[in-house]
């Protein structure tokens, strides 16, 4: 599939999930139970991007020793828990990562 076709399909599926919520979904279609489970979607999907990017190297092998990403991710998470702030979390993670690779 060409890059452009891929981009268009991804755009289409993004648009359709948004459109369906405005145009098709009615309040009765979701009971509280389904709503409750859907509220876990970010917690269920995002870690599947986060964990491999932190713990695996570019070829997909475990990289547990000499891996500054693990410490930087832990620091970012702690700052995130304390500050509840998106920018503080990203900046503290990047800053500690750079500190660990350039200074230490």
């Amino acid at each position, binding site marked *: 599939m060409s890059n452009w076709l891929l981009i268009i399909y991804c755009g289409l599926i993004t648009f359709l999930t948004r459109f369906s*919520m405005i145009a098709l979904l009615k309040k009765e279609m979701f009971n509280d139970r389904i709503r409750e489970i859907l509220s876990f979607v970010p917690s269920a999907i995002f870690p599947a991007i986060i964990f491999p990017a932190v713990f695996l190297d570019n070829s997909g092998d475990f990289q547990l020793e000499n891996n500054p990403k693990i410490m930087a991710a832990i620091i970012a998470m702690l700052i995130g828990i304390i500050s509840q702030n998106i920018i503080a979390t990203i900046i503290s993670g990047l800053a500690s990562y750079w500190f660990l690779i350039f200074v230490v």
Partner: protein
Amino acid sequence: MNNKFRVFLKGVFDVSPLMIPVVPFGLIFGVLSIDIGFSPIETMGMSLIIFGGASQIILLQLFSGGASSLVIISSVGAVNSRHLLYGAVVSEHLSDLKLIWKIVISYFLIDQAFARSNEYFKKNNDKNKYFHLFGGGITCWVIWQTTTFLGIVLGAFIPEKLGLSFAVPLTFLALLVNDFRKLINVIVIIISGLVATFGFNYVPYKAYVIVAGVTALLTAAILTNLNKKNE
């Protein structure tokens, strides 16, 4: 001042504070997309056609890992399934709109604008209230396109040694800050992360995001169920 314009400006004003985190997100997207090998036009095209931060970054991540198109598209769908959650809430306020407006609003509907406009809809009931969502959506659109463009330009000057790809897990981590304090969410996060990490090399077609997501959602369903029984 015309009422529609006033409501539109209110939407712009209300959503603006939430735009601060969008700036680094857009820059990172632009830089990484060029880094991975997409052309500047394709990168701009993604921001214009998809217009969704999480979707676009998942696309980059899976594309650079060699995932097939079908897996990339279904993973983008999985990420977007959270939008369905809003449906029950927002549709009742917009049910009288013409189809063309529903299409326009759907394109501009992103998490931040939804959050702000939903608060506004609850308090106001004039017939032009959808201009609030339109204003918030356009504000985010302008910022997203501008920062993508700046990221594309800056990307040429940022040395690879900086390891900016690490910004991808960090941005997703940052989007979960509100969930780290809730026990069930923490368990769901750990399950998803472990399944994805151990399944990375074994799940065919790089569909590890979907497998991990489904496993973690099932865990959430079981845990919330147990929680209710204990109450």
